[in-house]
């Protein structure tokens, strides 16, 4: 029996604007199973990023219930939210957001520092993650010395190093050329298959859509279509 790791029930999110509210999500019902490779698509302002933030425990719903790894996001304290993100959720961003002062190795190592692994454990886990994304020979470089594709690979390694159950990727290929975008997506798909990690994308990019097994269309804060599809590209 498949396992739900994200469950959203009638999720509403309102943001205060002036004297009133802007409703970004209007009653979202969604469930994600372990190992899914799914994407949220839709125009700007449709609520993709807000939904991703709630699934990542960076924000809480105004109404409804969001269960991530069995935890009700709305009831978590700051510390519990941080712990949930640290132990179970990885993020990949549109811009790679690597810390420029640190090397590739140290950027990837950071979330492990928060988990109190020993230095030897951290080294092994970081090198494994860099190997997954094919940049183990760049470990000592600073982010400024990397190409765009390499930078995004480091970001994926950083998200994957702690072996999270969920990776949330917000427009991860927006700044990449087609060749690098495909390479990145193949890497992610491979990790999805090998490690069983659930990937949820927010994207406009048709290349990304070509890899997805499930596409959820959002419009004006509502789910207008949720379909399981045959991925165009496989690994």
């Amino acid at each position, binding site marked *: 029996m498949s396992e739900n790791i994200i469950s959203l029930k009638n999720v509403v999110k309102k943001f205060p604007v002036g004297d009133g509210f802007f409703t970004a999500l209007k009653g979202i019902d969604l469930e994600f199973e372990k190992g899914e490779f799914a994407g949220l698509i839709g125009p700007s302002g449709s609520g993709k990023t807000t939904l991703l*933030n709630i699934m*990542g425990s*960076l*924000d*809480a719903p105004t109404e409804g219930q969001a269960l991530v790894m069995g935890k009700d996001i709305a009831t978590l304290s*700051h*510390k519990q*939210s*941080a*712990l*949930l*993100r*640290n*132990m179970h*959720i990885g*993020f990949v*961003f549109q*811009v790679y*957001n690597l*810390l*420029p*002062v*640190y090397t590739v190795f*140290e950027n990837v190592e*950071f*979330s492990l*520092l*928060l988990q109190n692994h020993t230095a030897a454990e951290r080294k092994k886990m970081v090198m494994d993650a860099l190997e997954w994304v094919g940049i183990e020979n760049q470990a000592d470089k600073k982010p400024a010395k990397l190409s765009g594709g390499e930078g995004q690979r480091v970001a994926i390694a*950083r998200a994957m190093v702690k072996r999270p159950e969920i990776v949330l990727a917000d427009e991860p290929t927006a700044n990449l050329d087609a060749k690098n975008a495909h390479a990145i997506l193949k890497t992610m798909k491979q990790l999805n298959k090998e490690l069983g990690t659930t990937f949820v994308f927010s994207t406009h990019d048709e290349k990304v859509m070509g890899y997805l097994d499930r596409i959820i269309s959002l419009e004006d804060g509502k789910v207008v279509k949720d379909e399981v599809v045959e991925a165009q590209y496989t690994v």
Partner: protein
Amino acid sequence: MIKFLLKGILGDKNRSVLPIIIITIGVSLTIILSGYMRGVMGDMIDQNARFDTGHMKIMSRAYAENKAQLPNDLALLGVAQLKEELKSDYPEIKWVDRIKFGGLIDVPDGENASKGQGPAAGMAMDIFNPESGEDARMNLTSSIVKGRLPSKPREALVGSDFAEKLNIKIGDEVTYMGTTMNGSMTFENFIVSGTIRFGMPAMDKGAIVIDISDARQLLDMEDAVGEMLGYLPGGVYDDEEVAPIVKSFNARYANDTDEYAPEMVALRDQNGLSSYLDMVDYFAALFVAIFVFAMSMVLWNTGLLGGLRRYQEFGIRLALGEPKGHIYRTLIYEAILIGIIGSIIGTAIGLVGVYLLQKYGINIGDLMKDSSMMMPTVLRGKFTPELLYIGFIPGLFAMVLGNMLSGIGIYKRSTASLFKELEV
């Protein structure tokens, strides 16, 4: 994690260099100003103690009431016995006799006519007895411009400016004209053995310095003294040490109604020096308070700017699962580390500055030409142990306070809005 933070601080020059520069400047300025001010104030107090007030001074009550007039007719009597008692009661204190007197100095031209005359401020002390320590205390030998110390009766030192004005040469004979303690006229010839410059315009313009034995004979003051000065063994005035001595001494004469009974006065209660002493403490505290406030404001803003610049980093760290409280704490740890580095550098620079000020000082001789204040013409800093922490602790405190204030801005934002502002 500490290694991670340290590498971040060292790797990101914008994060560390500006705050370190601010702290360094603030700490070094605080130390230099404090050291200089304490040096100047301390010099003034020390100068007063050596030349005029002692660490404590005994006079007759009547003399004390009119001491500005140098009323030797109201001098303290029975000095030998009193001194024996003092030596027995306070064996650690060094007691010295001083007589101050006024008069006229006449310089004869060798043909029984006057070559020049001028009013003199006379000071008599125990020069002939090397154990009195007066030579060292008054810097007599090192202050001699020409000639030597008086070594026999009827020899005198005169202020160098005074000697220049009256064209007095070494070996010249000068005549003192004045009154004895009993009010009769007195005349005496002195051979000028040397000229002296104390570095205090008030003294250099009209001083004549003779041995106490000459003064006693000249002024009919056998077994009498205008002022008896007491000095603590370390040579440094300590109010807490002096106050109980003054209290116990005066208590002994509390029931004595004689106006010539001895009265002891502490340094701080003479010449308005209590204000100086209080001012030293007041200004030192004020400097530190202003420094902490100003530095905190600057570092608060620096921290805010740094925080804005580091929004991306904070966003990543939040996303990676670092709690906001942990981020805030690491900001404080960084502040402590930067504060310590800046404070150490600032303290080192400040101490070097104070050392240079102590060694070379700032010469205000030209400004003091016409002054009658008893203060040195070269104002020097003073190296004291408290300078080691007087800037260090506030430097560290200001850095931490500044970062705590700026960090609150980040801490108070909700994770989502902060994350959104981060544009990650």
